């Protein structure tokens, strides 16, 4: 079973990365543009004449807008890091690492802005439901 799984994995990754034109991080040869070179600086709608990786030649708008270098398609999407997360399995790692507090559901505090009005809206919704349940107009 493992043999087949490995075989399918290898085939799939091969297809995804190599067989398709833009698969993975395969670098395409830099195209030589003879005519006037369109620039992504001049216009965001400018497109190169020959198909190439648009991220290769652009410094202005790069994936760094959102991601650190090498983060667009890492070899492992969930590659474990040594960074620290409160309550996680690596809690006792190096204390100098950045610490991320995991977001959890919290109980709403009654001091929240407009809590009374929110409670009133909820009560009104409850009254409407109760009214429709008891009277059942049209049913």
């Amino acid at each position, binding site marked *: 079973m493992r043999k087949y*799984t490995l075989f399918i*994995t290898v085939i*799939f*990754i091969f297809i*995804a990365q190599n*067989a*398709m*034109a*833009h*698969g*993975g*991080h395969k670098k395409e040869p830099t195209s030589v543009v003879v005519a006037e070179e369109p620039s992504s600086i001049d216009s*965001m709608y400018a497109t190169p004449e020959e198909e190439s*990786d*648009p*991220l290769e030649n652009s410094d*202005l*708008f790069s*994936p760094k*807008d*959102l*991601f*650190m270098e090498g*983060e*667009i*398609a*890492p070899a*492992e*999407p*969930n590659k*474990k*890091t040594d*960074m620290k*997360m409160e309550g996680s*399995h690596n809690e006792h790692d190096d204390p100098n690492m*950045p610490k*991320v*507090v*995991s*977001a*959890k*559901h*919290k*109980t*709403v505090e009654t001091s*929240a*802005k407009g809590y009374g009005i*929110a*409670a009133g*809206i*909820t009560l009104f*919704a*409850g009254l*409407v*439901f109760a009214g*429709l*349940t008891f009277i*059942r107009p*049209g*049913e």
Partner: protein
Amino acid sequence: MANGLTKILEDRLGIHLLEYDIPEHSNSIKYSLGGMTLSSFGVLVISGILLAQFFIPDPERANRSVHYLVDQVYLGWYLRGIHFWAGEVLTVTMILHAIRVFFTASYKNPREINWLIGIGIMVIMVTLLFTGTVLKWDQEAYEALAHFLWVAEKMGPFGLPLTEAFAQGVPLLNRIYMAHISLLPIIVIVMIGLHLFYIKYHKLSQLPDATKPAKNIPFTQHMAYLRRAGSGILLLICLLALTIAPPLGEEPVLGLEVTKPPWQFVWIYALENVWVPSLIVAPPIIIGFLLAIPIVDQNKEHYWKRRPLAIAVLVGFILIFAALIIWGSVTTMTHSM
């Protein structure tokens, strides 16, 4: 006076056209799950329009704008809670609706197309859920998007439109926001319209164990029932929003992988733990499986006791998903490619 006004409105608005007959069993919870889902969707649209007034779809400011809404804007926390919990309730009622349709074999001839439309709606709803998760732009959002982009990259030219490389200079978060508030809702509204049209065209399915035709009621009576069900859904959403605040983290630390996805996606987190390319292959396999159901299942029976194989598949599907969700919730990431 009131009756006269009602008559004028009925004449002008053509309300009498809604007086057509439908089976009496439509006024039950299990046959109103679709209507309840639609109620949640309505709440999502209205609360989403209000939320959009405060959201800044810029990677630098998105997370702060959500924090500002929650902490500073009057009732902002409640509005976000309503939007969040409406999404949660919608997920539950939508899944229950699909299970009911499968259980009662309502996808069979002549309703195959409506099953396919329903699966399409489900896929887009899940996409809306995903894009909504990303918009808050905290650690969980960043990691979700990183996974998504990894999949898009692996899809080669098919995934290119989903990456930042497709529209240089436009932050991906902007495009996700556009998809979340306009493109996907428009598509899903059109599909819901089609779904309702085909329910009307083919009529609501009969009870699977019925021996004689069901007693009919006018559709307006079902609308009254749905109004009550919808108000119950709204009450539930309001109660949840009033008591439990949805998670919201700080701005993401890039390059870090520490969070888990929401429960709707945690099953794929578990699968990924077993085999990383599951991220790519699992969704299309599941969607393909769901789409194939009315084509593969040619058994004419509707009653569940006479469909043992189909029911076994349904139970197996539910158990596998439940197990994956539980496992994904308790496990830590240990995989390697």
